[in-house]
């Protein structure tokens, strides 16, 4: 099947988007006394092309969140190196946005103020960012809730607000750590479709950590399948299913094939 993946469609337009390279990365968490506690990742290598949507999938403890934090520069690898656009990752970068399993909205800020947080931290002009923030809230369907406080929103709306906060500074790479994991399945499916729509419009590189195989396959161009003890990459599977994707796709035998393929790798991982 010919790839109608948006990667090709976008590759010309987004010259500013960087590739991510992960070379022989290992991460060991030590206790304070220096004794080995957990080997979270061992010898992980793969590359992510600009504008790709990549899922990390695997059981708890496979180091998928650790790998995400390493790429985001929130922690440092014990061995190996990670480069984003030829530059080695040393500390976090403002062109990489992060989203967590919890929305992490500040309860003392309204939705709009929460979305403007990165603008303030970056020292950009709040006034001129206001229109952009409102555009993004409209994009995620929160335009009439901008004055609401997070506690007045449902879980799904809170994560929409969190997504808006990432999008407001238009990062070229978005790292998402099980962003919709705590949300009911109906809402999650809708949010996933919205995420794909936004990604297809803007063409960021998105890394999406999940423990749902179906979700991983449905969203991604490539699925990085990870296993435990020690955390490692079992396989990187290309998903050449057509885009734009709809829920209908889940019925197709091609989709089932890929899902089964991923499942097989995870079955091997004991």
């Amino acid at each position, binding site marked *: 099947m010919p790839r109608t993946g948006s990667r090709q469609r976008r590759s010309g337009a987004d010259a500013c988007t960087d590739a991510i390279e992960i070379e022989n990365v290992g991460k060991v968490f030590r206790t304070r006394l220096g004794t080995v506690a957990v080997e979270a990742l061992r010898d992980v290598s793969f590359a992510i092309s600009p504008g790709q949507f990549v899922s990390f999938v695997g059981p708890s403890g496979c180091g998928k969140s650790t790998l995400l934090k390493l790429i*985001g520069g929130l922690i440092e690898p014990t061995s190996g190196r990670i480069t984003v656009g030829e530059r080695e990752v040393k500390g*976090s970068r*403002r062109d990489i946005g992060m989203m967590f399993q*919890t929305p*992490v909205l500040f309860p*003392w800020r309204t939705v709009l103020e929460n979305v403007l947080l990165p603008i303030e931290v970056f020292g950009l002009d709040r006034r001129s960012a206001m229109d952009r923030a409102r555009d993004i809230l409209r994009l995620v369907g929160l335009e009439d809730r901008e004055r609401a406080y997070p506690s007045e929103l449902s879980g799904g709306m809170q994560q929409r607000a969190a997504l808006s906060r990432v999008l407001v500074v238009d990062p070229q790479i978005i790292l998402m750590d099980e962003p919709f994991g705590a949300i009911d399945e109906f809402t999650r499916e809708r949010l996933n479709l919205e995420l794909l729509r936004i990604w297809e419009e803007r063409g960021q590189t998105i890394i999406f950590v999940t423990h749902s195989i179906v979700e991983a396959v449905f969203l991604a161009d490539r699925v990085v399948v990870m296993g435990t003890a020690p955390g490692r990459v079992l396989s990187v599977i290309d998903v050449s299913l057509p885009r734009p994707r709809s829920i209908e796709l889940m019925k197709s035998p091609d989709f089932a094939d890929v899902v089964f393929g991923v499942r097989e790798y995870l079955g091997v991982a004991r």
Partner: protein
Amino acid sequence: MSTHLAVAGGERHSLEGTTGVSRVSASRRLYEFLRNRPGIILSPLSFVLLLVLWEFVCRAGLVAPIILPPPTRVWDGLVILFTAPWFPQHVWMTTAETLIGFAVGGVGAILLGIAMVNMPLFKEVVYPYVVAFQVMPKVVLAPIFITWFGLGIESKIVMAIAISFFPVVINTVVGLESVEENAMLLMRSLVASRRQIFWKLAWPTALPSIFAGLKTSLTLALIGALVAEFVTSKDGLGTLIITFSFELKIYLVFAVIVVVSVLGLALYGIMEYLDRKVVFWRHSHFTG
């Protein structure tokens, strides 16, 4: 409180719906409101009953008036106090000692708490002292403060500071350290400066805890001021209590106690109000 508000909100709702008949059904609605919340009646009613019982016990001669004056006598005492020209200055003195002590102590305590959280080594060194002072009954310091700072307002302020300081220190430290890991990761992923992390995340996170400490400490500051006045003083409500006790004017002692209680209640009410205004999100949990 919140259920009360909810009921009030509901009332307004039904008012909108039935504007024409609202006057007719007003008494009925009042009746239903009270039936749903009998505590609103029963709580003050129990207080009145208590006063009546107290009065009866005294009038019946079961207790000597020198030991327990009847409520009516305490009321006389209050009238005497509030008509006396010398009374306001005593109220003012105790209030000033309390508020100055609370303000100085509160600000100092918050600053110390911030310093401790930001400098781990400093915290490690200082924390044992804080805990030691916290568990010490500060009342024992009152005579020393009188010796050091004299009979005037200074020694009372110092006592108020000493007694109200540590709850705020500890609540500030606890509050600042209760920042959620993901919130910290978010700020770090945005490459926020230390200053930004403090002002945009840690400080607001700590505010509910700090305010809880301040509320406790304002009441404590009043205790500190009164205790120091007990020891030696020329002015203040504590002085009045001691003086009237010596003169065996127990009904006046009771009257001053009522004034002190109302003062404490008023101060607490102000803090409660500020708390609700400043930390309006207290009852909404952190979403992350």
